């Protein structure tokens, strides 16, 4: 006999910055929301972000990510969001049915609206020695120090001078490690200059047009050999330097975690600077499949503030689609969010992301 399937109005996959924000908006509008996350704690990357955020007052600038995460969770609880932790969404099937793996059993959950906010995973870099213990993603090192309060090592080489590499370098210093150097293949620092300034003042050299050639060590990393590269990223002979380290962190970009959207059959577009394959979506964050929405890094790698706003947008649009918000109210609230999103994508650091977002909208043809 077939058991009756569990049903819910809104299922949100991923309880990070985007997913919690989406849940709050949908639940506040009156929709019954289940927020699902595979981790034992909600919050995604927010609780690792111990630095003060940029932005405007509306984006909670000057407040640390960890506090923003705490506040969002509180709001989600107040709004009546049901949070299911330790639950892996292994599939997204026909009729918007999610396959859940919870401990020793599986369940199905059917939703009227699904919001995917699965985030991204760290890119890696293959070089001789990259499998040695001590070589890890910068995000992994950040989890170790800020969540588990454990130093991965004493002497760190950071590869990549985007915002992730710069921020995690700073936080490793705060945790008590030495950051021997930050190396970056590009001839310029990709992250915010002020993040770079913080680690420079703390004595960390930033070596541009440099890459890691290999990691060496007996049972774990003991040394890294770095070298200068030309503008085609070809190592220049004779520029090799050996650094004594015990930890090598890779901050070389992120890729959207888009498996569920692929599985559902959403249309995709490839935009390299946004992290690769991205589910096409409209101004409401709805994919090419009605009732399936996306938000956050899954829709192109940005940062927590944009993820929260995109989540709000998806949550509002979902509530509107379910009839929980009137057309007028929905339009007004969405317009406010879109305006705030816009301000996060201006200036020389936002321009490229703004153009990429337009490209995503246009690739759908209609809005």
């Amino acid at each position, binding site marked *: 006999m077939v058991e009756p399937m569990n049903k819910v109005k809104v299922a949100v996959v991923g309880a990070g910055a985007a997913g919690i924000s989406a849940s709050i908006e949908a639940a506040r509008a009156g929709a019954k929301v289940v927020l699902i996350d595979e981790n034992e704690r909600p919050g995604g990357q927010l609780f690792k972000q111990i630095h003060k955020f940029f932005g405007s007052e509306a984006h909670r600038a000057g407040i640390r990510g960890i506090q923003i995460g705490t506040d969002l969770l509180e709001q989600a609880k107040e709004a009546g969001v049901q949070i299911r932790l330790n639950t892996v969404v292994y599939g997204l099937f026909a009729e918007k049915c999610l396959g859940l793996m919870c401990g020793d059993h599986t369940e199905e959950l059917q939703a009227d609206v699904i919001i995917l906010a699965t985030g991204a995973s760290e890119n890696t870099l293959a070089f001789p020695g990259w499998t040695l213990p001590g070589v890890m993603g910068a995000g992994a090192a950040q989890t170790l120090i800020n969540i588990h309060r454990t130093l991965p090592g004493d002497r760190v080489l950071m590869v990549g001078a985007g915002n992730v590499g710069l921020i995690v370098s700073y936080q490793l210093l705060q945790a008590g490690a030495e950051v021997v150097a930050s190396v970056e293949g590009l001839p310029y620092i990709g992250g915010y200059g002020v993040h770079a300034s913080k680690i420079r003042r703390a004595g960390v050299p930033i070596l541009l047009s440099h890459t890691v050639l290999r990691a060496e060590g007996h049972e774990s990393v003991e040394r890294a050999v770095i070298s200068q590269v030309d503008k085609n990223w070809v190592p220049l002979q004779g520029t090799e330097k050996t650094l004594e380290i015990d930890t090598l962190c890779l901050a070389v970009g992120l890729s959207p975690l888009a498996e569920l959207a692929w599985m559902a059959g959403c249309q995709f577009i490839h935009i390299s600077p946004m992290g690769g394959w991205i589910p096409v979506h409209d101004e409401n964050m709805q994919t090419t499949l009605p009732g399936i929405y996306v938000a956050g890094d899954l829709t192109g790698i940005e940062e927590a503030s944009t993820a929260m706003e995109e989540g709000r947008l998806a949550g509002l649009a979902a509530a509107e689609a379910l009839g929980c918000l009137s057309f007028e109210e929905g339009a007004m609230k969405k317009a406010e969010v879109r305006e705030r999103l816009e301000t996060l994508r201006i*200036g020389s650091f936002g321009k490229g992301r703004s153009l990429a977002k337009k490209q995503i909208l246009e690739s759908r043809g209609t809005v």
Partner: protein
Amino acid sequence: MKTQGEEEGIRTTGIPSEEELEASPGYPKAEALRKGPIVVIECVQDIPCNPCEAACPKGAIKVGDPITSLPIFDAEKCNACGTCIPICPGQAIFRVDMTYSEDKASVSFPYEFLPLPKKGDIVQGVNRAGEVVCDATVLRVQQPKGFDHTAVITLSVPKHLAMKVRSLKRRKASIKE
């Protein structure tokens, strides 16, 4: 603003160049610095960010619209209270008093490393590149709750280094109790 490929500047060194600082509307002019304690904003990139504007009780900092505009600093209105220093997520705001004494200036900066120094400690003042440039005496360590764990440290430094010293050499925390 520097574009890609240009020599020295924040995008290639992580340190704002003299030219970038001079061109920034947050960076006070030399005559304003001579008058007494004043805030020094070293914000040179068009990041969407404006908490400094709301933080200033005197209305001396204006970012306006668009939010990526560099903060415009009005030296006449600034009373050097320093409320903006711990608020700036970029830790790009400092305070300098060229009139501190005959031969010393005071420099205040945000600091988020443990252990914190104590008032009266002799520490090593470092420049924007993290190089030790002088010994410095800790005049003040402010860490009220409202600063949210960002301490503001004030050092006395030789006057000619007032626009060079921007932090202190980080001391290693001892794991032992």
